[in-house]
């Protein structure tokens, strides 16, 4: 039950992150909004990991390592954004790109997450 709830929470957090990528450009603190939402997703994934049974962890160790690595890579987009600003890129353009990359990449990550969860019978 807790596992199912944690699974749904990760999915919901990806949804919130994707919503934030659609609205962030309207706010001066748009990037902070994205960062907070991304960290909420990371925390949610940590909580999800803690609900897995030893058998699921063992059978899915490779997949789970890839999901974690995927989050690390998604987070690199924020550093790239900062790098672009430091190189003099227009903030609005840099933010628009960050939003688009986070939106598309988090969709790819969610597909993997759903696939792995189903393979490992998580939340059943």
């Amino acid at each position, binding site marked *: 039950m807790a596992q199912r709830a944690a699974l749904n929470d990760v999915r919901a957090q990806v949804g919130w992150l994707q919503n934030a990528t659609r609205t962030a450009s309207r706010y001066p603190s748009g990037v902070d909004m994205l*960062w907070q939402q991304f960290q909420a997703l*990371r925390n949610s*994934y*940590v909580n*999800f*990991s*803690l609900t*897995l*049974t*030893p*058998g*699921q*962890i*063992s*059978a*899915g*160790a*490779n*997949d*789970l*390592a*890839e*999901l*974690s*690595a*995927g*989050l*690390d*890579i*998604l*987070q*690199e*987009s*924020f*550093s*790239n*954004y*900062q*790098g*672009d600003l*430091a*190189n*003099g*890129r*227009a903030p609005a*353009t840099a933010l628009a*790109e960050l939003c*688009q*990359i986070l939106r*598309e*990449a988090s969709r*790819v*990550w969610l597909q*993997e997450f759903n696939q792995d969860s*189903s*393979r*490992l*019978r998580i939340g059943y």
Partner: protein
Amino acid sequence: MIPIFLTSCYETSRTRGRFPIVGSLALVAVLLMAGCASKTAVQDVRPPGSGIAEYRQIASSAQVAVQAALKALVRVKVQTNGCSPQALAALSNQVHRLQVDSLKVRARSQALLVRGDAYFDQWHEQMARIPDSELRSLAETRKPQLQESFRKIKSLSQEGRAAFDPFLSELRQIRNLLEKDVGSVGIDNTQDRIRQAADNGNHVERCLVGITHELDAMQAMVTPLANSTKN
């Protein structure tokens, strides 16, 4: 505040503090737990051996993205009278695509490097569950060769990952320069950057080709002779 022990070596001095790259707490937790987990009940339900084909597919997709980015770079390089809006838009688009389309292969490479031999062991264990006894026996007798191919893939992944970061960084900087001044394509500094980016991009592509080649070799090792001649 993010604890300092979670920050990775990718963190740059400019991004430090605000957006540090955080090492994955989840990964640490999962890997620690994986080490002491009992092997009970749960089994991966994907068809045994499908991992090779899956990895091959994500490596090929990343290769397509790298090739497209390199092509866009060449198109920019030859624009001697200022970069055309079309060439710049194509480069921007490919820089964007590269970041998204390489996500899976980068994540797999990272997982493979973090888990090392444990990654191979888990994959090989999965092969041991193949119902076909001939295939199972092939996977067992050819374990040393499979392991050797895996080591090569691991090494190529590390090499590719090391070349990918500067490749992407150079591409972004070239795009940023051209967004500010399309005429800057003609100056030596930009041309040097383009050359450097192309070198790194070609290096990444060679690594991906090498990975695909090793995956094909692994696939052949676990394919019975009768099947391989049929195909």
